């Protein structure tokens, strides 16, 4: 009884999400999925953490403005950093709105609160090499007038095609580039081109880390032609009301992140490979907290993976052992059960998932169903075999002493068969840890997600961020089973061998 309880508890522990630190609801900070977004998210999270005891959950790198807006609306996140122009255009669908106040009040009607500018703009900019700027005494875009005919420029497709890009620019500044010296290029290649001295002028974002890296000088938009995209915090109104103190902490950051600072931070991340947490901490003048992005990512996947493995394990124990018992007891039913679990095992996982989708939809459910089916065979077969291997002399004696069927099973048969049964569960668990990676194929997450991404991108490091934790989980599971062996295999059997 006690052992069975221990087992069940352990399963439950495996299956349950890990204990959350929060008594109180945590504040959830989101971010977009490029470098600057991560950095700003970390800054917000750490700022709150250092000033408040409310726990902070990071959901960084969630995607684009649209996703983050949905997340804000649904309450999945409380706050994140965005840009005024993007907000106007993507959320409010009012690209005409330019002033902070207009945007703020439009957002307010959507129950969103926007801070003032954080201190830096992110906008299109034109840049030249420092050396080139020195040579031609360039500081503003206007300074280009006169020499632009001889300048070799490389502009991105986006810049060339947008109405507020190249076309407007040449009109606003009355620039006359010579067409054969202006090329359209993939944006990332323009850096290469200017580095190599093939071109003199490129377009970029004003906080781009490459500015520093490639020793570029950004030409001032003295006619304020480019729309200004100012970084701001956007938060749920409910959040600002519930946590006014924490919101104030974020508001205190207004104006605190200068353009050079942001460029520097982006560069640290992109070029120096410093962790976001560390960069944010440096900026805030504090200690870096336990770095989280990759870690919390892995934690999340671990939770999903554990849930998949834990539930299917529970199933294989709760269903597989009884099936094995029935198989050992009744010959015909036994053969049927064993054959059925064998046949299920041969259905390839992709095909099985394909059959399960009509029944279970997508996500966790079909993945769990598949895992449960796959983990049956080892448990059923080993339970069957273990029970059949028990010396019938002991069963006869147990009957002679007046034990009931149940008691014989619980007190004599299962303990004596426990090493074999446990080996079956062990195999099932470890196979399941491996197979659970397939769950990612139907959107159930887990360690399979990076593995599948990595495979489709042919990117080994990404694969490893899934494969290594899975292997570690197998190691841990192995250790847990060693321990379970001590709990569940009777000492009389263990000592003997």
């Amino acid at each position: 009884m006690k052992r069975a309880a221990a087992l069940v508890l352990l399963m439950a522990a495996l299956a349950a999400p890990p204990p959350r630190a929060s008594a109180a609801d945590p504040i959830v900070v989101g971010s977009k999925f490029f470098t600057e977004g991560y950095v700003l998210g970390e800054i917000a999270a750490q700022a709150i953490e250092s000033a408040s005891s409310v726990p902070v959950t990071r959901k960084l790198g969630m995607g684009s403005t649209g996703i983050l807006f949905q997340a804000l609306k649904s309450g999945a996140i409380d706050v994140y950093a965005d840009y005024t122009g993007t907000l106007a255009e993507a959320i409010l669908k009012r690209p005409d709105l330019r002033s902070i106040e207009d945007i703020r009040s439009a957002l307010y009607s959507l129950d969103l609160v926007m801070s003032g500018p954080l201190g830096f703009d992110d906008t299109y900019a034109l840049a030249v090499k420092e050396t080139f700027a020195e040579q031609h005494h360039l500081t503003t875009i206007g300074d280009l007038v006169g020499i632009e005919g001889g300048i070799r420029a490389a502009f991105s497709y986006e810049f060339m095609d947008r109405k507020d890009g190249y076309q407007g620019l040449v009109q606003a500044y009355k620039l006359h580039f010579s067409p054969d010296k202006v090329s359209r290029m993939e944006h990332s290649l323009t850096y290469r081109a200017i580095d190599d001295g093939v071109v003199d002028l490129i377009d970029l974002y004003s906080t781009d880390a490459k500015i520093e890296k490639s020793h570029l000088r950004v030409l001032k938009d003295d006619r304020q032609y480019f729309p200004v995209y100012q970084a701001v915090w956007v938060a749920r109104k409910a959040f600002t009301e519930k946590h006014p103190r924490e919101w104030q902490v974020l508001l205190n950051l207004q104006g605190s992140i200068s353009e050079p600072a942001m460029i520097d931070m982006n560069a640290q991340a992109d070029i120096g490979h410093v962790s976001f947490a560390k960069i944010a901490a440096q900026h805030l003048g504090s200690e870096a907290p336990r770095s989280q992005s990759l870690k919390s990512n892995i934690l999340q996947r671990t939770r999903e993976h554990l849930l998949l493995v834990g539930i299917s394990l529970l199933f294989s124990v709760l269903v597989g052992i009884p099936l094995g018992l029935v198989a050992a007891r009744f010959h015909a039913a036994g053969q049927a059960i064993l054959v059925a679990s064998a046949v299920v095992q041969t259905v390839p996982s992709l095909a099985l998932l394909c059959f399960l989708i009509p029944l279970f939809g997508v996500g966790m459910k079909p993945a769990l169903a598949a895992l449960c089916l796959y983990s049956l065979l080892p448990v059923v077969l080993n339970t069957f075999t273990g029970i059949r291997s028990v010396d019938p002399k002991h069963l006869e004696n147990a009957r002679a002493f007046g034990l009931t069927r149940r008691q014989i099973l619980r007190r004599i048969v299962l303990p004596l068969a426990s090493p074999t049964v446990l080996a079956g569960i062990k195999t099932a668990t470890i196979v399941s840890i491996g197979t659970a990676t397939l769950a990612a194929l139907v959107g159930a997450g887990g360690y399979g997600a990076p593995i599948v991404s990595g495979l489709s991108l042919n990117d080994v490091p990404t694969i490893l961020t899934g494969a290594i934790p899975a292997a570690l989980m197998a190691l841990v599971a192995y250790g847990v089973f060693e321990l379970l062996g001590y709990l569940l295999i009777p000492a009389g059997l263990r000592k003997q061998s």
Partner: protein
Amino acid sequence: MLTLQSIYQSFDGRSVLSDINLNVPQGATQALIGSSGSGKTTLLRITLGLIAFDKGYVKINDQPLLSFTQVEWADRIGYVPQEGGLFPHITGFNNVSLIARLRGWRKNKIADRVEELRALVDLDPGILHRFPFEMSGGQQQRVAIMRAAMMDPQVMLLDEPMAALDPLIRRSLQRELKAIFKRLGKTVLLVTHDLGEAVYLADQITLLHEGKVVQSGSYRELLLQPADPFVTQFINAQRTLPDAAQFA
């Protein structure tokens, strides 16, 4: 009290017991002796309902075996299997107390009862905390006797319970058991190869040979009115110890 009526049994077509009739009155002790392979153990297993026999009746107080469940039946009987048959995965103490614990006895009561029995079979206390494989043959056998007696059953079936015990312990155990059997009015069926033991403990002796009862009666009857020359032969075969007088 314990009645076996025309029991027949065969294994794989070989007849092992045929037409066995036996009646052990309430409070009496019956010894079952006989050659190796004559079916003594099989008869005990049949009495316990452990094997489905071909023909016949087993009754306690005129109630047939088949009118009980296995558990009810087993609860009436204490059993020492040949070679002890301890469960290998639990300690001696747990072997002895298993049923009591399943029947919900209190811890104290269990401890007291086990201690009482331990003293009876003269076992060192520490040995009960060992697993069967850590005990000597005689120690295992004594634990098996304790287990059989634990629930104080009315009927006891003992299959060579003292074969592995040294003469000293065996003698004292025989004395104790005889006293207990008499005092508590136990009905006992005892298989033994030790004729001295049979004579000392049993009121009646039944001699089995090749699955048939050759003779049933008191030792005196077997000795003085043998039903068959085999009876005399069997009894005389017991090797007696030369006593001091022979050396003097």
